[in-house]
């Protein structure tokens, strides 16, 4: 009975996670430029991964394994926020007329 409830909740969370990942990808097609697309990717994928991680927690064989799963989400969040910022900064540097130039030889 209780197991059935847990599985039902996991199922809902997994589906919700996949839906949000799909939203992030839909954003790539529907949004008009790079910056708005980053909005969709970072926010929707962050939530999608979060749902999937929470859904998988009851399956973790040990406490440490559960934390390891959570750690994946935390690291993915940090990477997503950082890369979003770097892409946004690069895009803006190009379109605003190069107020900042990259320090390479080109």
């Amino acid at each position, binding site marked *: 009975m209780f197991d059935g409830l847990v599985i039902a909740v996991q199922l809902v969370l997994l589906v919700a996670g996949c*839906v949000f990942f799909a939203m992030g990808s839909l954003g790539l097609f529907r949004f008009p430029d790079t910056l*708005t697309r980053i909005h969709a990717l970072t926010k929707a994928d*962050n*939530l999608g991964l979060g749902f999937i991680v929470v859904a998988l927690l009851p399956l973790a064989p040990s406490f440490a394994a559960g934390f390891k799963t959570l750690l994946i989400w935390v690291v993915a969040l940090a990477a997503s926020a950082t890369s979003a910022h770097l892409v946004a900064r690069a895009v803006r540097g190009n379109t605003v007329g190069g107020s900042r130039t990259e320090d390479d030889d080109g």
Partner: protein
Amino acid sequence: MQPAPASPIATFAARAVMLAVVWLMLTLGDPSAWGFGAVVIALVAALSVLLFPPSIHRLRPLGLVQFLTYFLGHSLIAGIDVARRLLTPSLPIRPGEITLSLRLPEGGPRWLLANTLSLMPGTLSVHLEENQLTVHCLDTSDAIEPGVRQAEFQVARAFGITLDPPEGVRA
């Protein structure tokens, strides 16, 4: 009141303990991983102290919990907000940028705010220079600044910082 930064030794020890916990999770407590882990933890902790010297801003446990609650709640709003806009046939977005003066001190607090804002509803940190943060907004007709100020307040509380009066707020 300006607290002094922790000594490098104490910072090294604290970061080593944190890394050890992460290593424990990664290896699921496998004892055979500890030899290699000890070397890596010592090297990484030493490198981190060299690259990021001890700061006067330290996270407070209670403030951090409050920040995480805020962060999770707003992550949910952010994802649903983007999904709602994407699924509306007319695609209701009005992209634009605003620049704000941050009241947070430089270093960790500003960095945390910039990264947090990229995951919050409707905002994306584009450029941070001195205390000027440029934010790209998905919809400029939304109330962007109150949201940023709220995130700023949450970050300040996580670090136990009292913010100056809001001189940067434009009515």
